[in-house]
């Protein structure tokens, strides 16, 4: 039954031995030399500039005086004691960035932001639409000091349109994107994905647009203003299922189906899903390259019968039942290994501690230690944006205002007196 491409798939290959680069190797990253001024507060801007940092850019975070970036106040914290230096999302999202504490609403702060913007390639912000123009730091004003500036604004509903001034949040954006309506059990309330997925997608879209704009600047010599709506960012992930056309074209409203993927035709392939086994849950999937694979794996001939194979989605309940029956005495690991041996793409559901110590992540050293003066030594996930050999960012998040002096003196060339004056006036901290 194998075709020639399948033969290419079936032959095991030997990987050449590879070693991660040591810390002393100079790693060339694609955005080396790009300077990013990050005025954003919260998770979406945080992930945007995290991606840019992982690609090699230098990121200077401007944080409000007092408690800094909003993310510093989002727990969980070390030992569950609120502390702006030990917030889990802050520590993760801000690795390798510099922190400058600046009260941008202060009349003397405007010219500092403009001087920093003049030195930067990219500026990222996530204030409520309209706020920056109120303090004279909108794109028009900033592009006067830096005509090739690329500025990305992230907001929940977008800079323009009737709801642009509405208040948002992670769950609100997830709901209004439509994604919530298709997540969860059909007979229960719509469900949010774990973590902060709509915030992260706002950041991903902004980073993608910024890198596109860097290329555009190469070709045209022009800067760019980018307007990312978190709602649209998550809605832009609806591709591949005709989400916006299904009702009109097929009379089907896309709706949540538990852990099953959305399908419309009973003759579609088996809708992959999560099913229970002896010690947990397995992600059960069909392989188009191995149509009778479910029968081979489970030893259940019914699953290779024409009636089932030509209308798998229509027989999904029956297929589920037979696969569960096969798995009920097997562990997740046994199911995972047996299916992969046959090149059938089942995977297993792992908990967070299990993920951190699984043999693949261990072999790849995906989690790497970095030391933080307050939070201690922690293992951080690596970056998906660089080849494995180049590793992650073996660095920590900055303390609040850790680089205020360095940036004002070294980057802006301010004298000690100027810096002291700003501190005395309450523009900067500490």
């Amino acid at each position, binding site marked *: 039954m194998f075709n020639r491409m399948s033969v290419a798939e079936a032959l095991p290959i030997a990987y050449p031995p590879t070693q991660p680069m040591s810390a002393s190797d100079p790693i060339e990253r694609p955005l080396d030399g790009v300077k990013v001024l990050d005025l954003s507060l919260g998770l979406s801007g945080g992930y945007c500039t995290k991606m840019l940092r992982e690609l090699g850019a230098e990121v200077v975070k401007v944080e409000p005086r007092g408690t800094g970036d909003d993310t510093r106040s989002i727990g969980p914290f070390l030992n569950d004691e609120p502390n702006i230096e030990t917030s889990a999302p802050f520590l993760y999202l801000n690795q390798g960035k510099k922190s400058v504490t600046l009260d941008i609403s202060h009349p003397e702060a405007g010219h500092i932001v403009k001087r920093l913007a003049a030195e930067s390639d990219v500026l990222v912000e996530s204030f409520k639409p309209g706020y920056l123009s109120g303090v004279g730091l909108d794109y028009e004003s900033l592009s006067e000091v830096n005509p090739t500036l690329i500025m990305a604004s992230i907001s929940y509903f977008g800079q323009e349109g009737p709801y642009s001034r509405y208040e948002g949040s*992670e769950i609100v954006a997830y709901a209004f994107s439509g994604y919530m309506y298709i997540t969860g059990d059909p007979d229960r309330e719509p469900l949010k994905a774990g*973590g902060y997925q709509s915030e992260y997608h706002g950041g991903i879209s902004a980073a993608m647009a910024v890198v596109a704009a860097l290329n555009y600047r190469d070709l045209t010599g022009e800067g*760019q203003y980018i307007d990312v709506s978190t709602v649209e960012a998550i809605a832009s992930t609806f591709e591949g299922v005709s989400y916006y056309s299904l009702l009109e074209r097929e009379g089907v409203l896309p709706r949540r189906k*538990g852990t099953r993927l959305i399908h419309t035709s009973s003759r579609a392939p088996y809708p992959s899903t*999560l099913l229970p086994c002896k010690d947990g849950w397995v992600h059960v999937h069909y392989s188009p390259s191995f149509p009778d694979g479910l029968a081979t794996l489970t030893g259940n001939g019914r699953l290779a019968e024409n009636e089932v194979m030509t209308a798998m989605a229509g027989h999904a309940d029956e297929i589920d039942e037979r696969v569960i029956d096969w798995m009920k005495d097997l562990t997740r690991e046994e199911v995972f290994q047996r299916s992969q041996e046959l090149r059938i793409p089942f995977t297993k559901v792992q908990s967070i501690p299990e993920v951190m110590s699984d043999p693949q992540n261990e072999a790849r050293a995906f989690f790497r230690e970095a030391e933080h003066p307050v939070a201690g030594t922690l293992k951080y996930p690596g970056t998906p944006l660089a080849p494995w050999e180049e590793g992650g960012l073996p660095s920590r998040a900055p303390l609040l205002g850790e680089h205020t002096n360095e940036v004002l003196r070294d980057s802006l060339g301010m004298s000690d007196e100027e810096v002291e004056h700003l501190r005395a006036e309450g523009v900067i901290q500490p």
Partner: protein
Amino acid sequence: MTSSSKKPLPLTGVRVLDLTNVIAGPVATRMLSHLGAEVIKIELPWGRSVGNMAIFTSDKSVERPYNKNAGFNEVNRAKKSLALDLADPRGKGIFEELVSVSDVVIENYSPRVMPNLGLTYEHLRTLRPDLIMVAMPALGRPGPWSDYISFGPGTEGLGGMCHVTGYEDGPPSKPGNFYSDQTSAFHVATAIMSAIWKRRRTGRGKRLEIVLRDVTMAVIGEKFLEYQLTDRGPGRVGNRHHGMAPHNVYRCKGDDAWVAIAVASDEEFAKLADTTGNPNWKTDDRFASMASRLRNQDNLDARIQEWTLQRTPQEAMHCLQASGVRAGAVLKAPEALADLQYRARGFVDHTHHPEGGEFKHPGVSFKSSGPMTSLGRRAPLFAEHSDWAIGELLGHSSSDVETLHGEGVAPLVPVVRK
């Protein structure tokens, strides 16, 4: 670009050979195409039987179903199509000629396929020294699972996403749709554009490997730190938030109708209490502070729902937003299409496909002051650009092109799978 006066797009002049299938790869190259790249999709000679996306293809009464696969036609907008049998030496030869005039090669086969076809980065860079080559394996090198296979959703289980998604009292779950495929796609597009930017400065290409599971772990990265900081393995919290209450969806008037509400401060809670006609909540010990609301949120949620049940999701949203409360209707697809904000921003992309018909698609997730994207372009018909690619671009004679068509090396209609 055809007109010299027309401004370029960010990726104008970049040619991409797209060997990807299903969702994650095609969405990444769809993005590059909308940003100005010329994307040539190298299709399998037997057509587009792309598993989960087969909406029309399984219907044998449909003529040329491969041109009418709605899922395919969505994720492959704005590309060119050439079907090529890479396991045939002549097909491989044509591919190698294309590599010599291209900037990017991207594939998302299992890690075994490209080496076994003899199409490694080490080989292809001899044909195009500054080539950017992108692989999208499920689990990455090195390690015991390196050549295991998984589609995007399977990596959500292995990466921890499923474990932290779900109702508080329920089993692991996962985001609807192909979440990790889409999320990986945008990381891949970003990494490729960075490599192109770098190449313009150094003249050097790069081998990229973007691992689907790595992306899945990256977007829940804070969970791994939470575990270490608190010594608790993060679990499922449904729609709740550890620092905000209320934070949930509430049933509204209508069929399966819901609104999401999130309250981040006591000040916001006061607005919610007043707007819903419950000013007494502000002084009720059970609700007055965030800490007390977090403890009593089941009770509070039931009371909020008494108010939302009297309103449609949109009415509840606009009413709450008018007083500054974070609220959003849980939109259904047709409601998004009709929504004023979506319409004002022109989010939805419209295409007309000669065989598939009229379709609406998610648009690009950002607006820009300078024109960076070119939307409204349909997916190619199967092998629509075969003659152009082999004849015009590579300069083969029309009799050679005919032979390649006729012998199934570069077929114009899908061949029977060998």
